[in-house]
């Protein structure tokens, strides 16, 4: 089941590997995305620590790791086609895959209903 963070990342977990991206709301807020600075495969990330950077023409925003673990894949296709993040933020334009250290961390994240309710408060 897909989970969300208050920093507008989404995460799908399969086994002990999580796929992470930014939400449609975040992509919309950022406007035209022009660059994604992806994490290096093999690097360690901690829950809600910086993982990647996403840039529009006039802003740069940190993307946080929803869960602790090691980066096992990065979506290199975003380097040459950052516009994918605007087109399919919650699908093809995933940022990275994390091999999880503590699956229990997932409980701290929101489900879709909670995230949608959270968006209404913004």
């Amino acid at each position: 089941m897909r989970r969300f963070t208050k920093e507008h990342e989404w995460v799908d977990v399969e086994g002990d590997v999580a796929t992470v991206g930014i939400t449609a709301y975040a992509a919309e807020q950022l406007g035209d995305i022009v660059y994604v600075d992806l994490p290096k495969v093999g690097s360690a990330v901690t829950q809600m620590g910086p993982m990647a950077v996403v840039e529009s023409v006039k802003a740069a925003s940190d993307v946080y790791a929803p869960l602790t673990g090691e980066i096992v894949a990065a979506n290199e296709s975003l380097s040459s086609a950052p516009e994918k993040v605007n087109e399919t933020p919650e699908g093809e334009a995933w940022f990275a895959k994390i091999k999880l250290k503590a699956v229990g961390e997932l409980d701290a994240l929101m489900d879709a209903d909670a995230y949608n309710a959270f968006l209404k408060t913004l």
Partner: protein
Amino acid sequence: MNRVGRPTRPVVAEAQPLAATTSGSRGLLQAEALVFEIGDPERCGVDLPQPSGRAHRLGGLERTAPIGLAGLSEPETMRHYVRLSQRNYAIDLGLFPLGSCTMKHNPRLNEKMARLAGIADIHPLQPVETVQGALALMDELAHWLITLTGMQAVALTPKAGAHGELCGMLAIRRALIARGEVAVRRRVLVPESAHGTNPATAAQCGFTVDEIKAAPDGRVDLEDLKTKLGPDVAGIMLTNPNTCGLFERDIREIADLVHAAGGYFYCDGANYNAIVARVRPGDLGIDAMHINLHKTFSTPHGGGGPGAGPTVFSQALAPFAPIPYVVRDADAFVLVEHDETGQAFGRMCAFHGQMGMYVRALAYMLSHGADGLRQAAEDAVLNANYVLAGLSDVMTPAFPGFCMHEALFSDAFLDGRGLSTLDIAKGMIDEGYHPMTMYFPLVVKGAMLIEPTETESKAELDRFIEVMRALASRATGPQGGELKASPHFAPVRRLDETKAARRPVLRWTPPDPVRAAAE
């Protein structure tokens, strides 16, 4: 005898206006390709003697491959750059109300002085006895800056405002080293309304940046400041007058609080032009402040520099000023190029800073005198308030009351119109004005920061106010959407910045011959 006359009255054309021309030019606005597209490696606009052909002493390191540079003859070069120049807005063309940037008149006397052979054609490493006039000039400029600001010392060498910030913060760091506290005092307080250079500079000096909130009146929130002060604070970086165009009226208290906490007070002098010769920063408790000679003292902005950022220091920081500097001996000026006291924090650049800018600034100071500089500051403030008053009922002033040298508006008057600050800015271009500073400071939504400077006459301001009122009225009226397509009358229409950033093309490359053949 030819009796056929030519038409001497315009014929009211039935035809549609011309959409495009064959040449790509539009009357006086000539189309102009890149120099690489019109030039040639063999063409040359400089006549040089024939080399003798003697053997080289390069140890075989000759460059053999083609470089790829294109050349033009002198007349072609003149046309290329004159054509390019005609695509630029300029102060000499019209009002340039770019807030915080201080686009005032650049006197041509200053240019003439900077080109005197005894100034332009001297080498920074000439024996000092052959450059006594240059050192005297630097000393005189230093005297002006120290006297105007009421400070103790000045480092002339910083090459721009941000470089001056670095100079000030490095002096603070050096003072903390002398106190044995550099490892402890890691935090620098910066208001959220600050120029981006402030936090960037603090970070470059190894400090961490802690933001101070702005109060609802656009000034530093004193209570927030108090909670953020502590034994780990190195100092504060504060712009005054601040980026909202307001004087920080609690500045003395801020200085006292920071000093009591053991920190130093860095003032960003970007807006010093509002108070020059009327208020001395030295009387406000400041420890260091850079002065943008290209703002307050009218050296030309040149499309993005060169600037100059001399930095003045209080007694507390003066000993740590960087090398080189000029001192006056009994009968000569001496250039101190190496630290003899062990206290200087280092060196900001290869030589003695921006001599060419020193001359221009000094020519400006001498022309204005202490009285004229004061009048210039007052006129700048008066002009800004006149614009503020003239637009207050149709735009949204960001804060109540008078302003200093720049008037700040938010985009609240555009709410619900589907238009943004950007659209107003681009509409100004069609009306023949350079836009104001937009979306800065960050503490005001859709900020529009207008700095007319003392250069504008009342008549010019009246015309500007009339145009801005009309723009505001169009923006809030039924035809507001038209502004979204502005500018219509600039050399180019709105440019695709997304495309430029997604697939950066940062240089010309020769066309691919295979693809060219296919096309």
